């Protein structure tokens, strides 16, 4: 997600996002509402059209979305088999995560046919740069920031999908950092 990459840079520690045809949700460990209110960054800056120029390729390559699309490609090609609950293990079933395969392939054979296929799938299905550019131009200067006291009814469907698309960035890393700090505090208090 281009947005979460920007949020990551703004130290908002995003943890995940969900997008549907109607809504977009991002959650993180930082207080996003407070950041927008303080203008670091402003929502307008966040949705600025120049995000399309932002190292798009680099972002895509490391994104979880692409890994997910690679999983589908790997399934179709017969590289891995899908596990079904209750089905006997055949022994042929792979016990290697397609994420690991993806990382290794990307480093050692970036022009592999499965990576090409993944890229094509992603470019068609997940990303339409021209439309995205139009949309960003259209909404420019028209974004209102509203902090709500409670969950709004229209946001409920998308909140149910939370957890779908995790981001493995600074947010996750700060989980480990906090877990380390807690231990040091416990040790410091003579526990």
């Amino acid at each position, binding site marked *: 997600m281009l947005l979460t990459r920007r949020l990551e840079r703004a130290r908002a520690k995003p*943890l995940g996002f969900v997008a549907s045809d109607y809504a977009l949700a991002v959650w993180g*460990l930082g207080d996003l509402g407070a950041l927008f209110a303080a203008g670091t960054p402003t929502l307008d800056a966040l949705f600025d059209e120049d995000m399309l120029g932002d190292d798009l390729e680099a972002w895509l390559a490391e994104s979880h979305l692409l890994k997910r699309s690679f999983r589908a490609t790997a399934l179709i090609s017969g*590289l*891995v088999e899908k596990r079904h609950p209750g089905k006997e293990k055949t*022994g*042929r079933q*792979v*016990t*290697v*995560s397609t994420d*690991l*395969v993806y*990382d*290794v*392939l990307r*480093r*050692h*054979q970036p022009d*592999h046919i499965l990576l090409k296929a993944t890229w094509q799938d992603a470019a068609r299905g997940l990303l339409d740069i021209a439309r995205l550019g139009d949309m960003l131009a259209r909404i420019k200067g028209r974004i209102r920031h509203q902090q709500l006291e409670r969950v709004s009814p229209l946001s409920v469907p998308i909140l149910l999908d939370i957890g779908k698309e995790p981001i493995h960035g600074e*947010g*996750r*890393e700060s*989980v*480990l*950092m*906090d*877990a*380390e700090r*807690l*231990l040091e505090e*416990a040790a410091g208090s003579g526990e």
Partner: protein
Amino acid sequence: MQQAEAKRQEEGTTACAFQIGGLDAFAEPCGALVLPKPGLLVVSDLHLEKGAAFARRGQPLPPYDTAATLDRLEAAARRHQPKMIVALGDSFHDLHGESGLDTDDRERLKRLVAATGRFIWISGNHDPEAPQDLGGEAHETLEIDGLSFRHEPTHDPAPGSIELCGHLHPAAVVRMPGASARRPCFAGDHRRLMLPAYGAYAGGLSLSHPAFDGLFSARGFYCIALGRSRAYRVDPRLVAGAPRRR
């Protein structure tokens, strides 16, 4: 080893310092254990040629895992210039592993073994027989400086020494309010330290899995999770499956 510290900062990674049996130890974010005093570098579960092993059984995984694992092992050896490297078993994914190595990988591995004072292959369940012509020594288990090296953990480690083992590919699921992270980890208590799997295709098993039942005691339990460029000693209270005091 001072140099190693400088080199590491150059590469932007930070190891986690701790003590094991009175010796200074460093857990590297790549999954290697470094003991500067005896000059030891320890890795576990390299699972070299795992990609090839799957390919033989009709599942053509890309074969670059061996090269990827060797890249990291060579880098760690360059940083620390250890007198001795110990591989704690499952170094090869199966018995065909060694013969299946491609020429490049074989030469690299031979060079690494030759350049290291002692290179120890501890045998594991995947590789009960030692590599034939890569050099190095093969052992089932080995005792050095009050440390006992073996592949699978024992249920009752001999008193008086600390067991260094691998086998289970430990991973920590760290839960904080609002978020959790799952990472390969070192897990230890007052008598044992288990290393994470080093191999590129090896994966991890959460400490909450029944395979870990009864292995670690709450006494002196610690868990060091591998971050992207740092190893973190995390609070066991936040780790799923960590032993609890009764």
